[in-house]
């Protein structure tokens, strides 16, 4: 049995969790997931300003403090912190090790970055079928989601820390399993079990009681929530748990919620290494904070990798003001009408103008309309949140100067301009596609 811990569900997650996973009990591997589509766009912006950047700097800071303990305890780390620059991230970690006089083997997995090789490739959008030529001049990055076998290779060659760029989230956990248990590339059921386990822990505390709807008010000590640990067996059975004495709760309900998170067809959850059938697994509460997962069935991998291409889409800005009782909702609606009329009188063109009323149905839209009608007159305040999006920067810049005047020019009892004018942001969008695996060559740099 090996213990695989997750200490980061996304970039921006708890900065203490990785250290607590290492210190509060025995683990063999620490996996850290830093990349989401949103993250890739942030890294892309950073790298366009500084070619040395483009990876998760938080990871390097965290490793810098934790390295002596990782070495002493023999815990191995697998992280997709490399982002768009895994080699730069590896250099930064090696520099930290050198400064501390520690001899640590650090590997980087490269090959996911296919930006330089797009010309001549006949790629089509996975959702819309549109050809790549539609966005060709605006592309910023292009990365294939690699699988677990390059991670396994890095571990097999003795790396204690493995830094990847883009790879399937669950591959971070599957790599160590393939390495430890010597699973083969066509052991579909075992690989699928690894993917199910990896999926269970890849979002950190979202499987140990965080964001859990079942009995949420009774889940203990969310301020000290324990991050997940997967106890994986060579036969593909596993237990999801957490360190003793930590907060949160591992239950069939919490694990089920996480297994269903961000999946499409549950019979065919496709990854670079196999397909996984989520309708085959059985969950059981084995004890307090221990849930077993058994019975995962797999299917052969496809011959393509998923690729995420990011491109410059345009600009957007969003601002808000808060209206207080009485008539808060009607005032917010009036503020919305005034803003829209101002934009029209200014002759500004937008691809989208969006307003919503926080505190009065913004999240649930029409589904919340009925209770809102009863509540509207009594609401103590309503926040008008107003945003625009356009291909060009200029109209968005002009819009950003229109919200503040509402405080003096519009309905009464209004506040919320402490943070100044809304910031104009560049919008980076994503274009998913598939490419033949033969076009991509993953490499381990050690």
């Amino acid at each position, binding site marked *: 049995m090996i213990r695989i811990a997750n200490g980061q569900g996304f970039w921006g997650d708890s900065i203490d969790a990785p250290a607590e996973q290492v210190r509060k009990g025995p683990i063999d591997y620490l996996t850290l997931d830093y990349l989401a589509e*949103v993250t890739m766009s942030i890294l892309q912006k950073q790298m366009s300003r500084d070619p040395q950047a483009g990876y998760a700097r938080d990871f390097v800071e965290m490793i810098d403090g934790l390295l002596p303990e990782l070495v002493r305890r023999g815990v191995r780390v697998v992280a997709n912190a490399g982002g768009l620059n895994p080699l730069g991230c590896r250099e930064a970690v090696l520099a930290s090790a050198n400064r501390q006089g520690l001899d640590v083997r650090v590997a980087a997995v490269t090959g996911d970055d296919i930006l330089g090789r797009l010309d001549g490739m006949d790629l089509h959008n996975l959702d819309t079928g549109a050809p790549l030529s539609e966005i060709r001049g605006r592309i910023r990055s292009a990365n294939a989601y690699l699988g677990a076998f390059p991670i396994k290779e890095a571990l097999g060659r003795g790396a204690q820390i493995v830094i990847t760029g883009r790879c399937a989230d669950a591959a971070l956990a599957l790599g160590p399993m393939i390495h430890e248990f010597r699973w083969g590339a066509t052991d579909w059921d075992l690989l699928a079990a690894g993917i199910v386990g990896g999926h269970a822990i890849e979002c950190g505390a979202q499987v140990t009681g965080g964001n859990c*709807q079942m009995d949420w008010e009774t889940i203990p000590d969310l301020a000290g929530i324990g991050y997940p640990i997967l106890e994986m067996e060579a036969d593909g059975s596993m237990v999801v748990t957490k360190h003793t004495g930590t907060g949160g709760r591992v239950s069939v309900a919490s694990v089920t919620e996480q297994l*269903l998170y961000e999946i*499409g067809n549950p019979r065919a959850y496709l990854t670079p290494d196999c397909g996984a059938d989520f309708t085959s697994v059985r969950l059981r509460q084995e004890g307090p904070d221990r849930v077993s997962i058994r019975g995962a069935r797999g299917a052969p991998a496809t011959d393509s990798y998923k690729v995420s291409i990011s491109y410059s889409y345009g600009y957007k800005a*969003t601002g808000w003001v808060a209206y207080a009782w009485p008539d808060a909702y009607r005032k917010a609606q009036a503020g919305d009408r005034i803003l829209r009329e101002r934009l029209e009188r200014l002759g500004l063109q937008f691809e989208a103008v*969006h307003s919503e009323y926080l505190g009065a149905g*913004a999240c*649930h839209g029409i589904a919340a309309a009925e209770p809102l009608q009863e509540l509207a007159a009594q609401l103590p305040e309503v926040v008008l949140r107003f945003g625009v999006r356009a291909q060009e920067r200029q109209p968005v810049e002009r819009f950003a100067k229109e919200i503040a005047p509402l405080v003096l020019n519009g309905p009464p009892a209004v506040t919320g301009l402490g943070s100044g004018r809304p910031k104009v942001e560049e919008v980076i969008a994503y274009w998913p596609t598939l490419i033949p695996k033969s076009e991509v060559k993953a490499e381990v740099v050690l």
Partner: protein
Amino acid sequence: MKRVRLIEVAHARSGDKGNACNIGVIARKPEYYPVLVEQVTAERVKEHFTGICFGQVRRYELPNLNSLNFVLEECLDGGGTVSLRADPQGKTYSTALLRMEIDID
């Protein structure tokens, strides 16, 4: 027969994939699962999300987990980085769906 909101018999979690959102709905007790299968259809979910979801709604059954998974296409104003919404990733669509009313014995 009693009319209740779905939240009384199910819990849920939602997340994003591009401009689509998925909502996993889990029966609080195994005996509620057939009720979900019968009443929480793709068509009803599509109607429930009028004005939010502009694409197809697909439903998948996971009897092993007493769960249904719904995929709502074109429901995030372009997706995580593009969207102007306060909830660009559809994280709160889980409980939006749990507002739906169903009939139980």
